[in-house]
């Protein structure tokens, strides 16, 4: 832990290692991004990509980078960061490493909203909007069901798992009701895909991140750190426990819903990024900023792999995050078991 102090009595505390992890992951994400911008049917070297980014290059290169590849990359970065931030908040609020939106049912709720639009027919904008509404509605329902003199960790997880199971059933039913062509499109959406994402997808997510990230990172992070000690201890330290939990749950549900609206319910990033960040920083406490950069790097890397792993055959990014995230989870459980912590 290092401290910066000014003569005026101001002081800032930070962990050099966490700072390093955050910067490292951000660099990695930038590197992946550079490769992603340069690869495709029209390959470009990193130098050409950089020149095009700052306004040079041929009109064709301009179009390919700015209109085709950059929106997809930005969407990937934002979705990764938003999911990681939401996952970190959920995991610390419920004090359980499995407390991620995929498991608590918020992701399934967003899917239900989107599938309703697929069945009834509607534009992709309507689909994104319905995903947000579905996620938020599920969040409200879970909160109401889990409420008993406040909402506590275990009850939230158990209610969330129940709601997730119900919604998975509903989603299956909706898929059988959808016209065949639409059902195929819906399955692709349900896997989580960045294919063909434009600025219209990235915009709303960027807006919500600009509002919520400072609220969570600056406004709530110190209190969230105290929440780790238990509700009683946090409350004794002057944390308004109930209000904080409500605000943070709302913020995390919004982030997940908007991320799902932009790219579909990309699995496992919200679960894995916080773990990875914690392991790398070796710091107790919610490692919010390192988690966000790790999440962004993870998703951009996964999307690159999804586009390039099989020549001429693109995968939806959700397939890759599922395989990587699931594998990491199994490995983690095995390691923890061997260390006797599970």
């Amino acid at each position, binding site marked *: 832990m290092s401290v910066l102090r000014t003569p005026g*009595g101001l*002081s800032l505390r930070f962990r050099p290692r966490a700072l390093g992890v955050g910067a490292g992951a951000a660099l990695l994400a930038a590197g992946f991004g550079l490769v992603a911008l340069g690869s495709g049917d029209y390959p470009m070297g990193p130098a050409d990509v950089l020149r095009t980014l700052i306004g040079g290059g041929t009109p064709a290169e301009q179009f390919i980078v700015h209109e085709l590849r950059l929106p997809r990359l930005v969407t990937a970065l934002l979705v990764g960061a938003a999911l990681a931030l939401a996952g970190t908040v959920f995991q610390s609020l419920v004090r359980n490493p499995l407390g991620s939106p995929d498991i608590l049912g918020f992701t399934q709720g967003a899917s239900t909203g989107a599938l309703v639009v697929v069945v009834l027919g509607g534009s992709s904008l309507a689909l994104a909007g319905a995903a947000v509404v579905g996620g938020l509605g599920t969040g409200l329902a879970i909160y109401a069901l889990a409420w008993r003199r406040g909402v506590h960790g275990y009850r939230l997880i158990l209610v969330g798992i129940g709601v997730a199971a119900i919604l998975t059933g509903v989603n299956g039913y909706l898929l059988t009701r959808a016209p065949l062509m639409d059902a195929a499109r819906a399955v692709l959406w349900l896997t989580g895909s960045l294919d063909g994402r434009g600025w219209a997808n990235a915009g709303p997510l960027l807006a919500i991140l600009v509002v919520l990230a400072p609220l969570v990172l600056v406004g709530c992070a110190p209190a969230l750190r105290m929440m780790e*000690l*238990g509700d009683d201890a946090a409350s004794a330290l002057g944390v308004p426990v109930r209000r904080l939990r409500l605000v943070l749950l709302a913020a995390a549900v919004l982030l997940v819903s908007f991320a799902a609206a932009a790219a579909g319910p990309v699995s496992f990033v919200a679960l894995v990024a916080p773990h990875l960040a914690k392991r790398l920083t070796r710091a107790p406490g919610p490692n919010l900023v390192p988690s966000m950069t790790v999440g962004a790097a993870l998703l951009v890397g996964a999307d690159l792999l999804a586009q390039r792993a099989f020549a001429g055959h693109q995968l939806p990014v959700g397939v890759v995050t599922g395989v990587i995230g699931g594998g990491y989870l199994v490995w983690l459980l095995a390691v923890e078991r061997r260390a006797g912590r599970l």
Partner: protein
Amino acid sequence: MRPGDSRLGGTSLTLAYDQRTIAEDLTVAVPDKSFTVIIGPNACGKSTLLRALSRMLRPSAGAVLLDGRDIHDLPARKVARTLGLLPQSSIAPDGISVAELVARGRYPHQGLLRQWSREDERVVDESMAATGVDDLADRPVDELSGGQRQRVWIAMALAQQTPLLLLDEPTTYLDIAHQIEILDLCARLHEEQGRTLVAVLHDLNHAARYATHLIAMRDGRVVAAGEPASVVTADLVAEVFGLPCRVIDDPETGTPLVVPAARRRATTPA
């Protein structure tokens, strides 16, 4: 008791969880600079009272007053600078070191641009020294023994620098030597630092030995309050705990010592 004698107390409190009423019309006062101990049988409402006094449970009627004002009208952070609490169970985050955990006690004194002042550093060092955990500063809390860990949590509460400190069963789960160690520590904090301490204790003899003020509760009512020597009598123990006993002088301290009646009397009369 005159109101001027007490910074913390409750008047006509009704305490309830959901619809289950634990206590009705309960009035208590914590004398300033006292080491107040609340005793009573299981489920008599003593921990509930402590939760109400520490702002964690809102009374359904009546009010907890801190410095003459309803504690629920005061901002949480302001309360946390006046009144500290050692909860019955707290969670030490994975891998956190002793110094880092104790430092979290400074939270109510910190701000966005004042995250770690020299004052914070000094208070944390002092709190660790006062509880004898300064040698453990860099050790992970998960590796400590139960007694050491409890001292670390007390150090965290001390770092909060509150004139009032509430402790909810601080000796539970500790062996006898560590129980005495923690109680000696509390007595020292009370005497040397002039803090007002309020503790819920299970062991009547510990309470009688360490408290300067005792509150005996049963079924959500205060049965007796006052100095241990006047409160702890055979009649009161029979009334509060339903336990026949004799009360003798503690040979070490002269405070009351409760000796439960034997199931079968010894052949030589005492």
